[in-house]
């Protein structure tokens, strides 16, 4: 970054042997962060990266001397500019928080108090810490809102949080963190909840103000490509321990540890080009329009074909209507107009109108494996039920096939007697897949099936899905917002926006190179694995 940022020996934060404990369901304390060291110089940005359970947010909060309810800092020192936050009094820490160390939360919509205007929440910290008067704070807020390219910067602050969009709120929150010109800001996954095109704007704004005020920052995320744009140095964490730490360029170019490499596992996947589709599609969506309630059109004249043994990926940002399309196909939302055909024959628009055979032909795999499996049923019953229900198999036959199925999804047979609560996220998702396949369907709707999973686990799931497709000639209707996933599994691609189809065709036709402007924006917004990507893109877009 800048020269000042690189000044050696100007240590701002020094964490040594940090141990954090959390209380489990039974009420016992267990260690979740096992002696982590962390150094940060003034004006430097450190990326903290890791998958779920790595303890990165917990460490980020500990840098403010803060532990969430049910957690406690059990050992080590947290020296912030000569003060040990691990032992400092509440009042001392209160004096620092907001004033010299600020926090930017993951979901701005949840982290702004709904009862107060944005600008008043901006002014609260400077006024309370006695740094600025209210009027001064308001003037500065407007200037900062302008710098962060918020629309109508003089007046947007006088709105309430629910009146402002997610991407704008996230920028307003970064501005709020800047209010006292702190020495250090903790960014806790600030763009994780945003769409890719919105993410760019927020990343650019954050990078700009951090640079402008030479603020040191800890940037927490699970996305290596994002952190590569923001950080000078990157620290990789796993299960509350450090895996490796290196300057950003070095790590991107040559990570030392296999674990680090696995963090971008899905990016390396690419499905081989498949032969051109056969003539008749197995599933066909014809000119479907759909609406929730009256007048709320969410799908507008959408047509999609899915050919046997192939995968069509429906890609789009939130609000594009891609999940609604899945609901229409499943029969959960009868369309206003248009048809869904399977093997050339029409499907009833309502679930009640579909025969058992029709239902059997289309099965669904869900995004959240946690809620997709009944926590009170054993794996045996979850996978066995569709066999009994659709195929009318007897008990012994079901038991035999459940064992076969577990084998097929690469899980031990003994898992049949487990409850979902005893499985990991990836294992649960595999059970979800097995339940869908137990019905012996023709079409499987996959609704963001890997979005909630860590990269390595997601890679495993995608590989499994592809193997099963080859073996069973399955057709996947694959809904996702991640372009890396599209590249990994799709034969055909449909790009959707605002309920309309923007482009459709084979993967190569639609994406490589993109032929529609929106597809271009979408593709170029996905952060790449090199540190100069964001700066390059912003320069190019100007």
């Amino acid at each position, binding site marked *: 970054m800048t020269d000042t940022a690189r000044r050696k020996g100007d240590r701002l934060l020094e964490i040594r042997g940090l141990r954090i404990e959390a209380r489990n*369901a*039974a*009420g016992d304390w267990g260690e979740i962060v096992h002696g982590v060291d962390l150094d940060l110089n003034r004006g430097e940005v450190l990326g903290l990266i890791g998958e779920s359970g790595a303890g990165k947010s917990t460490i980020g909060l500990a840098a403010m001397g803060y532990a969430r309810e049910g957690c406690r800092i059990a050992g080590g020192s947290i020296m912030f500019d000569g003060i040990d936050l691990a032992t400092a009094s509440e009042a001392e820490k209160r004096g620092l928080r907001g004033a010299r160390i600020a926090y930017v939360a993951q979901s701005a919509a949840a982290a702004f108090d709904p009862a107060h205007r944005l600008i008043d929440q901006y002014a609260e910290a400077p006024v309370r810490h006695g740094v600025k008067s209210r009027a001064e704070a308001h003037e500065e807020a407007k200037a900062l809102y302008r710098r962060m390219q918020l629309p109508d910067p003089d007046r947007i602050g006088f709105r309430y949080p629910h009146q402002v969009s997610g991407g704008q709120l996230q920028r307003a929150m970064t501005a709020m963190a800047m209010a006292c010109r702190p020495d250090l800001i903790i960014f806790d996954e600030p763009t994780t909840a945003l769409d890719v095109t919105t993410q760019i704007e927020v990343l650019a704004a954050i990078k700009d103000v951090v640079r402008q005020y030479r603020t040191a920052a800890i940037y927490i995320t699970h996305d290596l490509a994002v952190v590569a744009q923001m950080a000078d140095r990157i620290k990789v964490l796993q299960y509350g321990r450090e895996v490796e730490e290196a300057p950003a360029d070095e790590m991107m170019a040559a990570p030392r540890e296999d674990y680090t490499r696995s963090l971008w596992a899905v990016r390396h996947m690419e499905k081989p080009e498949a032969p051109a589709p056969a003539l008749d599609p197995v599933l066909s969506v014809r000119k479907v329009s759909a609406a929730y309630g009256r007048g709320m059109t969410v799908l507008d004249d959408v047509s999609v074909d899915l050919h046997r043994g192939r995968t069509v990926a429906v890609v789009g940002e939130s609000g594009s209507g891609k999940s609604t399309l899945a609901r229409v196909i*499943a*029969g*959960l939302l009868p369309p206003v107009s248009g048809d869904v055909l399977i093997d050339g024959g029409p499907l009833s628009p309502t*679930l009640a109108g*579909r025969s*058992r055979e029709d*239902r059997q032909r289309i*099965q*669904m795999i*869900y995004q*959240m494996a946690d*809620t*997709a*499996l*009944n*926590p*009170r*049923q054993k794996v045996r019953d979850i996978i066995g*039920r*569709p066999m009994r*229900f*659709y195929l009318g198999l007897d008990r012994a036959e079901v038991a035999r096939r459940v064992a076969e199925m577990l084998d097929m999804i690469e899980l031990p047979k003994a898992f049949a007697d487990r409850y979902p609560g005893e499985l990991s996220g990836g294992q649960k998702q595999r059970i979800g897949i097995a*339940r869908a396949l137990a*019905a012996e369907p023709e079409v499987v709707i996959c609704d963001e099936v890997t979005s909630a999973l860590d990269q390595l686990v997601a890679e495993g799931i995608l590989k499994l899905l592809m193997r099963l497709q080859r073996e069973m000639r399955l057709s996947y209707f694959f809904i996702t917002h991640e372009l890396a996933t599209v590249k990994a599994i799709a034969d055909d691609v449909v790009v959707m926006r605002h309920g309309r189809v923007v482009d459709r065709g084979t993967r190569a036709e639609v994406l490589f190179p993109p032929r529609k402007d929106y597809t271009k924006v979408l593709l170029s917004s996905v952060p790449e694995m090199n540190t100069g990507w964001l700066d390059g893109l912003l320069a190019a877009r100007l």
Partner: protein
Amino acid sequence: MSRALRQFFRIPPTALLGMAVVLGYAVVALFAHWIAPFGESEIVSSQYDPWGGAFLLGTDNIGRDMFSRLIYGARNTIGIALLITALSFSVGGLLGLFAAVRGGWVDMVLSWIVDILMAIPQLIYALLLLTIFGTSIPVLIAVVAVLDSTRVFRLARSVGMNVVVLDFVEAARLRGESLWWIVRREVLPNVLPPLIAEFGVRFCFVFLFISALSFLGIGIQPPLADWGSMVRDNATLITFGDVTPVLPGLAIAILTVAVNFVVDWVLGKASGAKS
């Protein structure tokens, strides 16, 4: 085994005490006939005999043994309250889950009926209905059970709603499972913990409610021994500084406190396990 023991000792002392008390009451209620020294409505002496001697707690306003009546009261009041709670749970609980799973107009109509029934305080309804139908035990049970089932309906519906929106219920619907199957196999097992806790809460409420009605003279009718009416019948003694009439009230209070302690623990456990 050691794990079970450890679990046992993790139970907070209030909940342990609560369980012990509930158990004690159950024993007294079940074996009232063998424990009580005199008959339930047997007039054994003159009215208002003092404590001690043959009559441990003296005699009541028409010369029945207070102690024996207290014991029989446990059987009557607790028994009727349990019966009512069980009734209101089977009706309200099932209808609530049914409404949650079925949705649509069925849910709307059922909810509307419950809203109307809940728009008036239960006591007022009970007074009105008992005036109209007279005060007999079957009427009392029916009226209180119907009124109370509205509360159970609300709870069952709302916890059911939380489960119904989950994907595994949608998966069952997509599969084509019957309504009854979804209620029984997908929803019910997942709402059992809060419903069990609610059973305790509702039992306390019903128990207090019928005691109140009896105290007002329109609940359980003489000569059946009942804690509410025993307070009322002997209230005059209080003016003389005698605590005897308060004892049945104390019996009620101790049981409800005990049940609440247990419920509080169960609820805390259920919510703690979730997070």
